[in-house]
Each structure stands twice: as structure tokens, then as C-alpha cells.
């Protein structure tokens, strides 16, 4: 059996057999789904709370305006004094009392109305009450002006400009953001993977140093083989873990939602989107229906295969670059506490890529900042993936940028892995010393 394959196999097995790794693999989806379910469930409970509000209406207005719904119930008092109404509301433990005085004019009635409550009232209650007053007052004012409600409704229509490409295809608002969001998802996945499993690689190197097995191993294999085997083995374990997470989280989500009776669309807020993609098209507003179909079509037209292909390319190169840096850090230090200062500069470009991606690429996927960061090798795996759902070539990422980005990434990959391997080779045999920069430079020449 090839030595590299042996190392990969050992690293993989050592990782997946590790107890905390196994626990994390199976506990994380449960925790995550549990959290989501809990939040959804609590939201639902919260929504179900019904507040009871008493009304003492002495005027001639609003007699049919306050009707109970699932959030609020109204109890009407008649023919009692305000003081008595207050007392009974309080003693019955109701939420509050709405007092509408007897005046001739609606404006005056509204102006003198009061809401009494034990504590400061919740804004949702006030909003509801205010809306009712507002509606009535508006109707009255329109009536005074001689405008019919229908005419007013027409006036209120929002205007949207029609957009189109030069070729006459309809442009969809926000489609760029949606596409960048999809790309951002891929980018985020890469970042998380690098941070989690890069850290694993680093800890594994430190473990070999502290257990003093390292010299035994490298008298049999080249340090570079060991480093590469470690990185590949760990990433395979990571892919296994990610796959288990995605599958089990999906299943758990389905099970949990069906048990607790939570409609997933409450959470995702993209009910229309998902059902449009599913082709179901249930009760939607008719003209929105057509737009949704266009969105769905756009999403179908994202070159998914191409995107996944490039995701793999950027993922592999990006992960190899970063994890070899992590391996070199692990080799240069003696224990994990010493690593913090080295890790920060490594995570920095990753963070930068994500933030620049979300703030700049979303607005303008092909602007100068987006282009710059999608060419720079330490950020390109994330930023370029955010741009790619827009397609390649006309209207998308120019082909030269894509090629330059990948070429730069490959050159950087070779350079960084070479440097990291040198530092790794010397560092693994250094105990109890913190190397100076001069020494680090010297290491590169050994």
C-alpha cells in the first residue's frame, strides 16, 4: 500500500473514531434543529396568546369596529362609570381598558380617547387600536373632501418601472441578490470548512509533536507526505461529517416540523419561492404568480452544474492553501495556546471575503471591488463563488477573470504549500523554542 494512502487512511480513521468527533457529528444536527424548532414553537406560542381588552364606549362611533381576533378579544362595557370600568378591568385581570368619551365630533372623540393599562402597553396592541382610529378618521376626512374611498385606493398604488436587458429579456428585481446569496452560501460553506477542519489539521500536528511520535514517522516518510496525508485525511473526515449533518438535519427538520405541526414556510419566509420552484403554485395572487414563475425560471437557469464544478475547484484549492498554513502553524508552535496570534492573520482574509462579498458583491457583482477580491487568491474562493451564479461570459463573470483567478490560485497554492512544507519540516522537530523570523527564513533553506 502506498505510504500516502496509509497516512490518509490513518488520519481519517483517527478522526472519525474520535469520541468528540462522533458526538459532534450526531449531536450538532439535533442541537441545531432543536434550536430552530424551539424558536419556531415559542414564536407560535407567543402568537397564540390572546389579550382581552375592555371597551367603555360612550360615543356613537366605533360601535362595530372592535372585533375579536386570535390575538385580541374585546369585552364591551355599557352604562357604567369610567372609574367602575377601570376597577372591574383591573380586578378581572384583563389587559387594559379603552375609553371612548361621548363627543359630537369624531375628531374630538378620537382626541379624547384613552387607553388604560396596568403596565406600559405593548406596541402591537396600540398599533391595532390606532389603526382602527386611523381608518375611521381617514374615511371621515376623505368624505369631508369629497373623495371616494375607491378613488383614494387608486391613488395609493405603488409604481414600479419596467426593466429589461437590451435583448428584450425581462429583468427581475432582486434576482442578483438571490443569486449572490446562493453563491454566498457556497462561499460560507468553504469558510466554515476551512476554519473547522484547518483547526483540526493544526491540532493533529501539535498532537504528533507533543506525543513525540513525529520523529518516528518522519524517519519512514517524507514530512511533506505526512502533511499532505494529514490534510487529505482530515478533509475526508470533514466531508463525511458535513454530509451526515446535511442529511440528518434535513430529516430531523422534516420529522420535527411534522411532530410539532409547524409550517416550514413560517420559518423560511419564502413560501412562494419554494412552492414556485416545486411547481405547485398554490393560492397566489394572480399577477404575482407570473412573476414568481419568472423567478423560478431564473433560478432554474442558474448553471448549477457549472457552479458546483467551480465550487469543487475553488473548495479544493482554497482548502489546501489554508490547511497547509494551519499545518505550518501547528508545526511552529509547541501548544495550542501559542497558536492564537498566528491564526488571526489566517482568518482575517476569510472574514474579509465574506463581508466584502455580502456588502459589495450583492449590490454590484461585477464592480471593481468584487472583481479585485475575486482575483486575490486568499479571498477568491469565496468571492468568485458569489459572482458565478450570474453566469460566465456576457452579463456574468468575464472569462478572463475566471481564468486569471484560478491561475493565481494555483500559483499561490503551489507557493504556499511549498513554504508551509518547509516550515513544517523544520518546525516539527523544534521543541520549546519560538522561532525568530530570521530562523524561519533560514528554515526555508534547509
Amino acid at each position, binding site marked *: *500500500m502506498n*505510504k500516502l494512502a*496509509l*497516512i490518509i487512511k*490513518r488520519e481519517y480513521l*483517527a478522526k472519525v*473514531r*474520535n469520541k468528540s468527533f462522533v458526538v459532534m457529528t450526531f449531536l450538532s444536527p439535533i442541537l441545531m434543529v432543536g434550536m430552530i424548532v424551539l424558536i419556531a414553537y415559542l414564536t407560535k406560542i407567543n402568537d397564540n396568546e390572546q389579550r382581552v381588552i375592555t371597551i367603555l364606549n360612550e360615543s356613537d362611533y366605533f360601535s362595530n369596529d372592535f372585533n375579536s381576533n386570535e390575538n385580541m378579544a374585546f369585552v364591551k362595557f355599557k352604562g357604567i362609570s369610567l372609574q367602575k370600568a377601570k376597577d372591574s378591568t383591573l380586578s378581572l385581570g384583563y389587559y387594559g381598558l379603552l375609553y371612548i368619551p361621548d363627543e359630537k365630533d369624531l375628531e374630538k372623540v378620537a382626541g379624547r380617547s384613552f387607553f388604560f393599562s396596568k403596565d406600559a402597553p405593548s406596541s402591537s396592541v396600540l398599533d391595532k387600536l390606532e389603526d382602527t382610529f386611523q381608518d375611521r378618521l381617514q374615511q371621515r376626512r376623505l368624505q369631508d373632501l369629497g373623495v371616494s374611498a375607491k378613488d383614494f385606493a387608486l391613488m395609493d398604488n405603488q409604481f414600479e418601472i419596467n426593466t429589461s436587458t437590451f435583448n428584450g429579456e425581462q429583468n427581475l428585481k432582486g434576482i442578483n441578490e438571490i443569486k449572490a446569496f446562493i453563491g454566498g452560501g457556497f462561499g460560507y460553506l468553504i469558510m466554515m470548512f476551512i476554519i473547522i477542519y484547518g483547526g483540526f489539521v493544526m491540532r493533529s500536528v501539535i*498532537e*504528533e509533536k507533543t*506525543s*513525540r*511520535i513525529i*520523529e*518516528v*514517522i*518522519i*524517519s*519512514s*516518510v*517524507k514530512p511533506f507526505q505526512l502533511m499532505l496525508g494529514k490534510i487529505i485525511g482530515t478533509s475526508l473526515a470533514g466531508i463525511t461529517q458535513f454530509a451526515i449533518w446535511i442529511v440528518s438535519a434535513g430529516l430531523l427538520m422534516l420529522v420535527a416540523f411534522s411532530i410539532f405541526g409547524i409550517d416550514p414556510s413560517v420559518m423560511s419566509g419564502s413560501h412562494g419561492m419554494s412552492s414556485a420552484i416545486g411547481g405547485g403554485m398554490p393560492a397566489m395572487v394572480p399577477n404575482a404568480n407570473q412573476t414568481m414563475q419568472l423567478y423560478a425560471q431564473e433560478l432554474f437557469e442558474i448553471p448549477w452544474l457549472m457552479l458546483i464544478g467551480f465550487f469543487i475547484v475553488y473548495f479544493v484549492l482554497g482548502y489546501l492553501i489554508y490547511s497547509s498554513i494551519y499545518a505550518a502553524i501547528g508545526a511552529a508552535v509547541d501548544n495550542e495556546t501559542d497558536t492564537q496570534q498566528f491564526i488571526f492573520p489566517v482568518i482575517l482574509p476569510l472574514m474579509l471575503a465574506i463581508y466584502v462579498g455580502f456588502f459589495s458583491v450583492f449590490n454590484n457583482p461585477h464592480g471593481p471591488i468584487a472583481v479585485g477580491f475575486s482575483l486575490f487568491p486568499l479571498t477568491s474562493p469565496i468571492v468568485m463563488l458569489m459572482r458565478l451564479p450570474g453566469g460566465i461570459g456576457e452579463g456574468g463573470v468575464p472569462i478572463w477573470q475566471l481564468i486569471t483567478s484560478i491561475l493565481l490560485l494555483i500559483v499561490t497554492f503551489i507557493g504556499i504549500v511549498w513554504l508551509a512544507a518547509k516550515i513544517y519540516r*523544520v518546525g516539527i*522537530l523544534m*521543541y520549546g523554542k519560538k522561532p525568530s523570523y*530570521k*530562523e524561519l527564513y*533560514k528554515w526555508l533553506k*534547509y
Partner: protein
Amino acid sequence: MIQFSIFGEIAYMNNILVTKEVTKQFGNYTALNKISLEIPKNSIYGLLGPNGAGKTTLIRIINQITFPDSGEVFFDGSALLPQDISLIGYLPEERGLYKSMKVGEQALYLAQLKGLSKDEAKKRLKFWFERLEIGDWWNKKVQELSKGMAQKIQFIVTVLHEPKLLIFDEPFSGFDPINANLIKDEIIRLKENGTSIIFSTHRMESVEELCEYIALLHQSEIILDGKLSEIKKAYKNNIFNIGLEVGDGDLLLKEMSPKFNIISSKYDPIEKQFDCTVQLPTNDSGEILAYLSKRGNVNEFFETIPSANDIFIQTVKSKGSYE
């Protein structure tokens, strides 16, 4: 190789390992300064010196873990090549095992890294586990083992692939006396079976009984090397220990003093036993033996051979700057 004479070629053929002016620097610090050594085949070669003398650096160069700045290394007659690592077994001073791996699994892994097939490795491991009486450890985890137990596993893994050259760096550290003896016997047996062995240590007492050849490394340089018996011969200084039965020891001492350089003496009047240590001008002991045999019954007479430790301290002192 062209520049070497035929005689030189033969010298290379008889040595398992030859270094020529090997130099290694770390920054401004010279770890090895022009080290030239010839390590004969089928012998135990002691690489001695205090901590920090450069022993481990030299061993790492032989194992191609690091590389010399200048100089050459020849293994079994030709320049040292990357694939030669499968012909070398190395037990480092800084040695350990993966803590969370099972003993058998780990031994198999390390053996396979040395190029053994899985089946062959299993077969040989079984043999060695039986031999060192640790057969029931196969499924134990390393963290359950004591330090001495882990050392046994490390020893087995080092010798399992039957290398031509074995390098032990402080092999006995961490062993109790019984296990240290067990390992020592195994080392001797390996040598008898034709393996060449480099044995690095700063503990001189273990050198005497094992090594045929030694090299003394001090402050990155070789200050002494050769066959241990010849070195000892060269370093002995004609000191003899004498014991004889005599009626009056004090009188004898008085008579001897002008004639011989007496270093120390002791007389036991009850046993009538006189013991003394004498340094002679030459190695010829005939005169004093004849003189003494006339005075009493000589029951003890032997020359003091310096220990490796004495030689080491003496040599280093003569070079100065040894703390």
C-alpha cells in the same frame, strides 16, 4: 568516487556508513563541524558525548530528516539515497506513540510505513510480541500502557523491518533494569545476526559492555574515535593494583616509597594484608613483581584500565571548556 584509491573503495565496502566532513549550521550556531566517521559493518558503534554535542543532529542527517549544509554521507558503499530509509531503523530519543490508537493497529501502521506488507508485518509482530511477552497487548490503547511498556512497542517497531543499520538514541532511558537488560540482550543478538548498530548516549557505563567502536562528540566536533579496546590501551597510564600478605606493612611502605611512585596504600595488621596502587614509568611490571614476591605472598596484581567515562572526562578536559 573516482578520486578514491582501490584501498579507499575497500574501506567503503567494509563500512555500513561513512560521513565525510559533514557540517550543519542552525543560524549562527554550528551543530556539526566537519564530522568524518567510518562505522564498520556488523559492529556496535557508540556515539558518545554530552547533551548538545550534536549527536542527534548527526543521527537525523543519517535518517535524512535534515540535510547537511556540506559534506557527504555514504551508506553501504554508495551515496545515501532517499530509498535507503527502509534499510535503516531508528529509535529516536524523543519517541512516543499515538495515544488514542490501539497497540497492534499502531505497530502495523508504523511497520507498513517502513515498507512491509500488512501480512508480513502481522506475522513478524506476532513473533516479536510473543518474544517480549506482550502478546496480550494487541488490543490495548497506548494510553493504558506504562512508559516502559510503550518503549517495548517502540523497540519492536524499530527492528521489525530487519534493517541493515539500526540507530538507537538513548535506548535505555525509561526502562527499568530488568527490561533494560532484555533490550540489551536483543541488541547484542541483532548484532550477532549481522546488523550494524549505532548507539548514541551520554551515559558512559552502558557503552563499556556493548560497543566495539566509539566516537566522542564534543561541541560539534569529533574529539576521539576508534576501536574501544585500542583507545583504552592508549589511555591507560601504567597504574597497577597490588595486594600481598606481609608481616610488617608499615616497614614495607617505608622501603618501597623511594623506589616506586605509590599513589595510595592501606595495611590491615590483623589480616596482615597490604594493598597499594602504584604508577610505573613504563608498562613493564616485571621489576616490581620480582621485588614484591621476595617480600611476601602476592595475592592480587592487576593493571587499572580506564573506563570510557574516565577517558571521556580526560579528553574533554584536555580540550578545555567542559563544565
